[in-house]
């Protein structure tokens, strides 16, 4: 196995183009597990950890451009105000050591249905910026990025450069169920973002379908029912109806971590609670 270690973004894209068999590696928290278990044996590893461009974030046009190599630990300490949903999700990732190594870009590359970063990116309507040496840069809405179980929309010569997430205009929540109180892969996860500026609701579901996904019907339903102008309290019945619609959007399976029925049930509870918390936050902020 070859080990490629570009020191600049251009070099990284060139390497990627030359070696479509290379597996990009950032923090290594997924890739190394796959290698150690002999589940993958790529022709080469493309180590992106020396590419400084990937390890920075900036604000452009009211959105955070989050470099693919920014680790979770920095999302928590540096971006909790701008991207509260993603920061909440980052806090639930693995152990402190994993949060120092693991990156949002790596999470997108793995495209696991259980990736913790995905639901808040879906709820926020994020876009993934990908690039290739031949065709330059393009942006993919995150909801279109996940194409199957652990598959994404990257072309063989492309790398993930960054993810663009609009700075939160309203409350966001992220909830994750696991069968212990730390260091656990989610049994189900749910992210919610309220966008009061455009009277819209964003959602993201994790670990309850072949890919992370939104619950569009639930989003429209809640956005249509909420009292955006008057900010009246969220009726319990509405929160519950929203929860049921979120659960209906999932296509979970039974596996060793949980049953399909429990995943649906828990999503309904999480969505109900998250909507209530977020709406209460919005009312308090008013």
């Amino acid at each position, binding site marked *: 196995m070859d080990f490629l270690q570009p020191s600049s973004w251009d070099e990284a894209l060139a390497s990627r183009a030359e070696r479509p068999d290379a597996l990009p590696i950032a923090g290594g928290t997924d890739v190394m597990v796959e290698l150690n278990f002999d589940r993958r044996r790529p022709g080469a590893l493309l180590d992106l950890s020396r590419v400084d461009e990937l390890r920075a974030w900036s604000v452009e046009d009211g959105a955070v451009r989050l470099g693919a190599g920014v680790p979770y630990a920095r999302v928590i300490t540096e971006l909790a105000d701008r991207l509260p949903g993603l920061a909440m999700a980052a806090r639930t990732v693995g152990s402190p050591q994993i949060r120092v190594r693991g990156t949002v870009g790596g999470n997108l590359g793995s495209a696991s249905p259980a990736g913790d970063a995905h639901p808040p990116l879906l709820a926020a309507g994020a876009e993934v910026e990908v690039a290739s040496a031949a065709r330059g840069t393009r942006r993919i809405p995150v909801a279109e990025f996940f194409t199957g179980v652990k598959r994404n929309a990257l072309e063989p010569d492309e790398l993930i450069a960054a993810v663009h997430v609009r700075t939160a205009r309203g409350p966001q929540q992220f909830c994750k169920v*696991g069968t212990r*109180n730390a260091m656990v892969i989610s049994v189900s996860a749910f992210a919610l973002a309220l966008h009061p500026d455009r009277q819209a609701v964003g959602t993201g579901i994790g670990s309850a379908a072949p890919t992370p996904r939104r619950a569009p019907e639930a989003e429209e339903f809640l956005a249509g029912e909420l009292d955006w102008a008057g900010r009246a309290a969220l009726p319990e019945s509405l929160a519950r109806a929203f929860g049921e619609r979120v659960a209906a959007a999932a296509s979970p399976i039974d596996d060793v971590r949980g049953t399909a029925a429990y995943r649906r049930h*828990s999503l309904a509870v999480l969505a109900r609670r998250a909507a209530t918390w977020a709406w209460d936050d919005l009312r308090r902020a008013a």
Partner: protein
Amino acid sequence: MTTTQTGVRTTGRIGDSAQRPDGTLKVTGEFAYASDLWHDDMVWGVTLRSPHPHARIRRIDVTEALTVPGVSAVLTADDVPGENAYGLEHADQPVLAAEFVRYEGEPVALVAADHPETARRAAARIRVHYEVLPALTDPRRALDDDAPQVHPGGNLVRHLRLRRGDPEPTAPVVVSIDFEVGMQDQAFLGPESGLAVPAEDGGVDLYVATQWLHVDQRQICLALGMPPEKVRLTLAGVGGAFGGREDLSVHVHACLLALRTGRPVKMSYGREESFYGHVHRHPATMTYEFGAERDGTLVYAKARTLLDGGAYASSTAAVVGNAGLLGLGPYRIPSVAVDAYGVFTHNPPCGAMRGFGCVQAAFAHEALMDELAAAVGVSPVEIRQRNGFVEGDRTVTGQVIDSAAPVAELLQRVADLPLPSALPERPDLLDLPGAVGNTTHGEGVHRGVGYAVTYKNIGFSEGFDDYSTARVRLQVVAGEAVATVHTAAAEVGQGLVTVQQQIARTELGVERVVVVPADTAVGSAGSTSASRQTYVTGGAVKAACEAVRTAVLQRAAVALGRPVAGLALDGDKVVGPSGEVLAGLGEVLGDDAVEETVEWRHRPTHAVDPETGQGDAHVQFAFSAHRAVVDVDTELGLVKVVALDTAQDVGRAINPDAVVGQIHGGSAQGMGLALMEEVVVTDGHVRNPSFTDYLLPTILDMPPMRVEVLEYADPHAPYGVRGVGEPPTISSGPAVAAAVRAACAKPLRRVPIRPEHITGT
């Protein structure tokens, strides 16, 4: 502390929390575990395992594997020179599968190569032609006439029958339950590892992490067809054991490869292989019935317990013995009828794990005691106190309990501890079920409190010749008195090395005690299991020290011309009746060393009557009680253990810090079984052989504990000690389960309790 005239009292005697010699090394990562073993010209051994729970091996073709560059040997069953069979109680397990494989993960072939990855790739090129056979994976079907036979002798490993009192008892209050316990893993952090070094005499030296060197040696000799003097074992650094190292793992395999290649061979499992490389705790299905007077006084108990032993016997028979003989809890019960069965299936083999048969049973009898309390209208504490053993009571096997049995006091102690405060209005996420998962801010959260009490046999039971050997030497080196302690007892992390030092300091008065590595150059110490080493090897070290002391003082008496009766050892001195220094040890011993070797036994135990299970089966009982407080998000089924407090009688705390450490760890392990730890097996296949999906409690799952240590000395045991390691593992889980039931008002008759069980989805 009394001050003697010598002005110096050795510290680190019994009763002190002496520092463990391996402590700093372990927390700084410097300690050499078995997985760190290294030899300059060594090669690596790997194991090819069966992918099927049950199959006939038609043919094994190793040709292609042998062509891989770097490979030095590929071995199959045909290469086992001795008997291709081993086992703790019955030699029924092949070293390498010959005709059949009987569980997923059974070793089939071995490869040695210059790099572990090369060995693994070569192993993947071994072609094994399997004829897959129907597998028996439901233990409840094991005794059916038409069930597939795991071994020619039938699927029953042991049936323990216990009968006492009225054969047809009746009672005004009757409660009953069915209960199920899942398969727990020992999950020791240091996976199986060993290094076998071929010796010039044609034998082999094996360095391995294990629990009982001599029982390993016996089995290895059988498989290699070699006498014990050719197969020498030395204990390598052990990273936890909990019963999972009682059976052989890499032992014979590494020796076979070393003898074949003439090179040192290292074998070291990864985490996934470790799940296939050792036995687990038996899953159990239990049906219990208690009859009682209207005030809750027990009249009778009936129990039927089925333990899934998996594919090979391991220690299933002894586990069945415990589940039957101790499976009704620490209660006075006039009439009992218990049938405990251990059966073969094509599931992973099960055997020893901390708590050994009592853990499974305690979930059932403690859940049923809560039912009884509710039925007669008394509290969980009262019902247990009313029926709990006191010293002098007879157990359900008719054995008189001849030392402390403080069941009522232990319960009172935990009941009297302050309860944790209620959750505040806006609790910190870390204090809530789900923690930073942010699943609740208090919604759906209900608090529950649960109690449990247990007793456990200490040491080996049912007539087993349970002994330990200690060799102690005292000499003066460069002006300093040094005691050397040599045993074959396995330090597995519990602190036995420190205990041996403390005993030698106490008995010989010297400061410096060297505990040399455990190996088979000295006699057997018995197993590091059954909470027995401080008792039995501690007893042997004490006896050997006493023999050394007697010999030294006799010399001193002669040299000093004084009667031996008034002499004692203190520091490096021989002192008189009032502590006055009479001579330095160096003056008495000169360059001589005084060495004594003692084989020490506890009081004999006896086999039980095969028809009734009656008899004095055990040498000692240990008691503990737990009170658990939990917050349960009843809508999501998530649990936060808020408090897990305990009281335990340890007879005498040789090292109080180590005692509390054992209680903390044991409690966490019991709680883990109640809430999350399960090897999930479907159709004979393990579905979660990793720490990603076999969940162990983290620091956010385990609360800080209050531990009440009672010291009611057992007059029959050295220093009055009572085994410590297992009881907390037994009573903590049932207390947690009871607290969860109380919080969510659901029966919950299975552990681990999963979120689905609480939510009903």
